[in-house]
């Protein structure tokens, strides 16, 4: 039962991503071509409201559903890992036209060949786990 709220949040997220066309390979291509405001509008308005929402949460010391004060863990400091890792991610994102959330949403819409991309993504994560000690962070 405690998982039900996550299940419905996920369903809602999947529906929003399809209806917004953010899961469309074409919209990602168009975004990287700077030929439409659509994706920038989605990400921009989400971040704008996200900043506002989290500022309100922090200012008012809002508690979560379990009664604990909400605190978002800060990201570790670093430069190379974010720039290099981010760039590798960007190469794959623009080629597959899907990032880790949309991959599963697209599978749900019936793009079964997405399973290969997901398999690749799990493999890529595994490779990172193996090579982590040798990479600059």
């Amino acid at each position, binding site marked *: 039962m405690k998982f039900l709220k996550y299940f419905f949040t996920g369903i809602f997220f*999947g529906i929003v991503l399809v209806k917004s066309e953010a899961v469309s390979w074409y919209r990602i291509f168009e975004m990287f071509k700077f030929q439409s405001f659509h994706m920038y509008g989605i990400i921009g308005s989400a971040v704008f409201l996200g900043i506002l929402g989290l500022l309100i949460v922090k200012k008012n010391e809002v508690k979560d559903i379990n009664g604990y004060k909400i605190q978002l863990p800060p990201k570790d400091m670093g430069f190379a890992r974010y720039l290099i890792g981010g760039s590798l991610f960007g190469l794959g994102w623009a080629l597959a036209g899907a990032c880790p959330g949309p991959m599963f949403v697209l599978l749900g819409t019936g793009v079964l060949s997405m399973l290969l991309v997901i398999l690749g993504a799990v493999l890529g994560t595994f490779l990172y786990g193996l090579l982590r000690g040798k990479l600059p962070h």
Partner: protein
Amino acid sequence: MEYILQPWPWYISGPLIALVMLLLVYFGKTFGMSSNLRTLCSIAGGGKYSEFFRFDWKAQRWNLVVVIGALIGGYLASNFLSDHSVIDLNPATVADLKALGFEDAGAALVPAEIYDWGELLTVKGLLILIGAGILVGFGTRYAGGCTSGHAITGLSNLQLPSLIAVIGFFIGGLLMVHVLYPLIFS
């Protein structure tokens, strides 16, 4: 109902994505889809090969439930909540895609030229899908997050590392679309 069936504009979709992020924060969690890939590695026994996969994956089950929900949401939206209109792309985008060999741009969510089963029978087609997946999976873990973790949550939380990661996302994406696409397709 008509408004539900039509594609939703950015000013509706963006705020709803912020709502998903804030809901998960309210539940005491964070919004980050790529963490599930690490969890999958751990479930598959990755801990035998790297301590990176030795963690209590059961504590991450909630996130797998989110992703299963997202998959079902995708099914529901495309089967019951869509009028299947062609994506309203910029005509310049459609022309650019045609030049690269992509026909019927926007008719489906993904291009048949990459995602049709027939493409998987060719070495090139197979390499594109698996290679793109590996880049996403490796890159996201190296960078410590993906679009949801860095671009939405991290930027909303004013994290400098997330800004660097998002700049990276764009360096890679721009390189792929502007430099590598003409080499891979066409």
